[in-house]
């Protein structure tokens, strides 16, 4: 069996360290070897296919964009084959200020979101906090609302002549405070809260209460128990911090509204201005892109340093449904009020802002009770503004993107958490977080550079301005989030679950289908709903990749909002949000009705 040891065949050494050599004439021994080789190829097949997908979806387009920092000539966007001028520009005063602003905002937002999201998750899943069924639904509603709406809602409430001032309240001091870094951190913390909550919830739900009970048995109080539990939950907490950090670095919704109006430049906005210039400065934008990607390495390094060499697999077939801590009456009241206030703050303002704006006449930007009208809704629903076609088009693409992203996300999460994944896992993680840290416009422009090459056209592979490429762009935008959200639950599944099924005679796939899928079914469902919701109103990828003649709903809304039809655009936003919410309610209802009972008891953020 050592015959092939000197060859450089593709099959890696197996557990025994031996390599196989395949020759059909070698009899029974070779047949065994052959089946091992096939097994290895099978084992390698999935990661290779996955890396092919990640390469096509993320690495190639990102690289096509980022390489222009050094070689603009490559894609015809500048004269030089090699230059360092863009990197030099990127270290100019404006960009550095933007980057520092972004870093400070991201660190602050990560801390706030993880603490608040963690407390909320703990309260919902581990205590008898009232409204336990309501709060997770509100978290998802918050997740659906684009960050610019949250920013705008607050502006409507607080500004001079705004909603609150109509009630005779003087909000000028609050408005001044809101119009700057504080407001930016506040809004981003609210919009990032769901990521932290869902990631931490997944980790918490997968954890039986035996660890808490053991701590209590040994006399630990709440602080002592927390000291035991926080390290066990470390992967979830760090994962939550990493995703919030990267999401905040790449946020454009707040950057282009509140931060821009308050003249608080963040990195994504500086990058956007470089691209939006005429002629577009792709080189400078790419150089800023490099800085954003490098910043995404920060949470990865922190995570790797904190988790080095430790295993966190705590969910097994024996994991029991955790018991809930009974809160003391005073604590219970305070916690309930705090949670209610949190959601009034996080959700009330943007919803009020959007609804009020959609009901305004005039040119739809000021508030007074006399100005309220349903005209814009009549126009959207019954007029000839044509919201129906964009909405149907975007809905169908969002459904496809959601299904594809969930399947890929699960596979990627598995790759990230598989033992021995080591370097491959870390590189995958860096690629995913790096792509989260880049704003959507970078990925979208990268798609044009990578998939609109004359060579591809000559081969008949004209992907640019087709629906499949737009779907690929949507999947690429959603995949990193999806994989991140699944890393927590997947990392905590013990191999023993699948092994037990294999021992009982299931094939590898069937073993997964019978153990992992039921346990993760709710996580998968919520993951799909998240991608659906985010894709439906996704803007930058839609803008740069949509096929001629098929306008996505986000582009239609953006045109009305940025033109002179603000009220109509906002009414469209409200209609689209209502559709999102309806789809989510129906999907959850169907799951409740149709899924086997065991699935319903599986993991999930509710």
């Amino acid at each position, binding site marked *: 069996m050592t015959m092939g040891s000197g060859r450089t065949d593709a099959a890696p050494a197996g557990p025994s360290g031996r390599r196989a050599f395949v020759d059909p004439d070698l009899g029974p021994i070779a047949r065994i070897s052959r089946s091992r080789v096939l097994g290895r190829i099978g084992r390698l097949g999935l990661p290779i296919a996955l890396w092919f997908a990640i390469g096509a979806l993320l690495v190639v387009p990102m690289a096509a964009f980022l390489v222009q920092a050094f070689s603009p000539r490559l894609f015809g966007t500048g004269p030089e084959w090699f230059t360092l001028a863009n990197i030099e520009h990127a270290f100019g005063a404006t960009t550095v200020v933007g980057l520092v602003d972004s870093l400070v905002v991201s660190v602050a937002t990560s801390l706030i979101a993880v603490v608040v999201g963690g407390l909320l998750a703990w309260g919902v899943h581990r205590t008898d906090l009232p409204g336990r069924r309501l709060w997770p639904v509100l978290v998802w509603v918050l997740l659906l609302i684009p960050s610019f709406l949250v920013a705008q809602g607050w502006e409507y409430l607080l500004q001079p002549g705004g909603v609150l001032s109509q009630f005779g309240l003087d909000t000028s001091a609050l408005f001044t405070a809101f119009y700057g870094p504080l407001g930016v951190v506040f809004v981003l913390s609210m919009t990032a809260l769901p990521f932290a909550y869902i990631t931490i919830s997944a980790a918490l739900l997968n954890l039986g209460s035996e660890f808490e009970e053991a701590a209590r048995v040994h006399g630990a109080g709440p602080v002592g128990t927390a000291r035991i539990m926080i390290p066990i939950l470390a992967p979830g907490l760090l994962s939550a911090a990493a995703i919030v950090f990267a999401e905040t670095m790449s946020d454009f919704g707040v950057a282009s509204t509140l931060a821009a109006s308050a003249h608080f430049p963040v990195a994504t906005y500086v990058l956007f201005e470089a691209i939006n210039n005429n002629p577009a400065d792709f080189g400078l934008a790419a150089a800023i892109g490099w800085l954003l990607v490098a910043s995404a390495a920060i949470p990865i390094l922190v995570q790797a340093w904190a988790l080095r060499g430790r295993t966190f697999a705590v969910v097994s077939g024996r994991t029991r449904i955790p018991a809930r801590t009974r809160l003391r009456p005073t604590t219970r009241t305070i916690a309930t009020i705090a949670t209610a206030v949190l959601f009034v703050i996080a959700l009330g303002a943007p919803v009020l802002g959007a609804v009020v704006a959609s009901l305004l006449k005039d*040119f739809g930007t000021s508030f007074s009770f006399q100005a309220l009208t349903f005209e814009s809704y009549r126009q959207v629903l019954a007029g000839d503004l044509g919201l129906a076609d964009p909405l149907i088009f975007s809905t169908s693409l969002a459904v496809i993107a959601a299904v594809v992203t969930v399947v890929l996300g699960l596979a990627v999460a598995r790759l990230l958490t598989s033992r021995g994944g080591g370097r491959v896992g870390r590189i995958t993680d860096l690629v995913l977080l790096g792509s989260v840290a880049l704003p959507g416009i970078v990925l979208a422009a990268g798609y044009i550079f990578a998939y609109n090459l004359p060579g591809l056209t000559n081969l008949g592979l004209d992907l640019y301005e087709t629906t499949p490429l737009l779907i690929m762009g949507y999947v690429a935008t959603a995949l990193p989030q999806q994989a991140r959200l699944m890393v927590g639950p997947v990392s905590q599944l013990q191999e023993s679950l699948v092994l037990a099924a294999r021992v009982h005679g299931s094939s590898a796939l069937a073993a997964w289908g019978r153990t992992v899928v039921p346990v993760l079914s709710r996580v998968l469902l919520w993951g799909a709903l998240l991608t659906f919701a985010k894709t439906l109103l996704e803007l930058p990828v839609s803008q740069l990749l949509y096929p001629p003649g098929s306008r996505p709903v986000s582009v239609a809304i953006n045109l009305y909002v940025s033109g002179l039809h603000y009220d109509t655009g906002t009414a469209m936003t409200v209609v689209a949000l209502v559709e999102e919410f309806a789809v989510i309610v129906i999907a959850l209802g169907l799951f409740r009705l149709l899924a086997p009972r065991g699935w319903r008891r599986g993991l999930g953020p509710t």
Partner: protein
Amino acid sequence: MPTLIAVFAIVAGACSASATPSPVPTATAAPPTAPPPATAAHAATAPSTPSAAPSAAPSYANVPLIVYSAQGYDSAVVKAFQAATGIPTQLVDDSTGPLLVRIQAEANNPKWGVLWVDGAEAFAALDKQGMLLRGYEPNVPFNAVGRSLIPADTSYIPTGVTMAGTLVYDSKVVTAPPTSWNDLLTAPWKNAVGMNNPSVSGPTYPFVAGLMNYAGGVSQGEAFFTKLKANGLKVNNTNPDTLHELETKQIRIALIQSSAGIGAGIANPSIKTAFIDPSTPIPGVIGIDAKASPAVIAEAKAFAAYVLSPAGQKVMQGGDPTGDSLYWPIVDGVSALPQLPVLSTVPAKAIDPYTWGPLESTINRWFSDTIVP
């Protein structure tokens, strides 16, 4: 992975027919139902030279013409054009910024046939990169303003005109608006003036460039904006933000495009629009992709001719009556919508797009770094 490929294959099969332009057929005859392009336009507007219609055209049977446009009336015009000519026309309707990003990112392998946005400066820049077809202007009776907007190398086609940086105010708040640009620098207008950021809002760069031109050059212009900032100028992203500040009385004067100001006046009659001498005209402009196939170029020429025909002008004026339709026509025989003042009463002074277009990125960056913060 197989699932992914299968899904993509299904989607590709289902969608590619409508989404991907088919290869260009060479010499197919025009379908009998499709009239020759713009014949109607020429018959009506230029009866003396009917043969000057794009004569090399008629092979556009099934090649889709792809129109990139940021005009509020574009979708109405594209529909009407397709109905009138039978030319399959697909629209990418978006703001100017993303459309120009698309065009520049696809420079190696362009997919667009027609670009139709406001402001000649962007076209001058594209022309300098060799991206625009030269040598074609539709044979229509351009008026004097229209003729003045045609570039020497005929690399683009003006389709109408609005004014940049007009003075928009609430007549209940402001009874005597400023009458000169220098008035804006005086104490009565301290903290009272708002405008858009030219790096974000397409039609704002012509305003900045026009003022700099009037001031005597870039450095004099920079000095003017620096003084304006010292007098409390507020810079927002786009029209809705600036109009919003006007409505909520955070500012008293908004310097925005005339169509936006007049449109706001339709919704709220106390909003008035005034013009300071000189105002800078912003032409609506069509450019044709120099690298497009001959069939697409023929279709694009037909499109431009249709837009400037009486039929096309009627659709343009009806497509967005409280927004972009509020332009001044530049062909004889077509009147502006009644809300617009007579163009000859507007004190306008055009700027040379070939001088100011190439300066756009430098000036915008200066504005972002110096005036916006």
